[in-house]
């Protein structure tokens, strides 16, 4: 009984430890540094949450097909420090510089993004002044 209880406790601990890891993963684990990409599109949705804000951006391919990309960016605090507000986003045209996800999905880690109309560039957490 004690062994079962101990195993259950360890398993629960592992599960609890894994949850924040999934939310705050390293760049190298999820993204391919060999695949830099620049995208231009329109923000259709904003996920304003920690540890990373997520933009959802419609990007038109060369063949005219629109694909919605998920863009992991800096955290809300870092973005707010740079003068950005949640309501600045939706409908805005944006240029994103970043790296493709390893799994081939339309997901990108943004090292920076620029709101075209505002002509203002926003950078990732670590580069925040």
């Amino acid at each position, binding site marked *: 009984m004690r062994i079962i209880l101990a195993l259950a406790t360890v398993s629960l601990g592992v599960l609890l430890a894994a949850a924040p890891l999934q939310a705050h993963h390293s*760049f190298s684990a999820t993204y391919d540094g060999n*695949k*830099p*990409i620049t995208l231009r599109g329109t923000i259709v949705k904003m996920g304003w949450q920690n540890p990373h804000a997520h933009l959802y951006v419609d990007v038109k*391919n060369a063949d005219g097909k629109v694909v919605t990309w998920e863009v992991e960016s800096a955290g809300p605090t870092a973005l707010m420090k740079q003068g950005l507000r949640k309501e600045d986003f939706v409908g805005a045209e944006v240029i994103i*510089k*970043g790296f493709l996800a390893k799994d081939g999905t339309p997901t990108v880690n943004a*090292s920076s993004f620029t709101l075209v109309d505002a002509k203002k560039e926003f950078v990732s957490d670590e*580069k925040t002044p």
Partner: protein
Amino acid sequence: MQRLTIALSVALTLGAQTVAFAQGRPDFSGTWRISQSKSSRNVIGNTPDIQFPSQLEVKQTATDISVVATSVRQRPLSATYKLDGSKVDVQTPEGITETGQAMLNGANLVITSRRSFSSPAGDVVVDFKEVWTANGSELTVEKTRTQVGDTPSTQKAVYDKF
């Protein structure tokens, strides 16, 4: 006596040429590891502007330079460049194709390359230009990344000899 003089003259001339060659030609051979403290904030950490390998293994001969670039949890890239600037294929992970060329330019090594891969946005072509400068146990790499339809961006990383 005359033969000895000629032999000595030839030996001295060849020796002097070898020394001049060795002095004038930069050597990038060695294992180099990126210095977090000396490199720009924009090339290290979780969201680099331009990805720099965390380690470079370089072997240089009179005609070639081979480079193996590795990073943590990233697939390595390697190439043996001819120093005459002729184009070679870079050994890349599956799904990426790349050609590159290298030339010595004074104290610098200049590597230019073109990388292609597919993405959900279509095919992507990115051009890179790297300028290497070695100074004793320190290697500085200035890298420019250009994608069609985008403004080029340039960053610098510093490596220490390991």
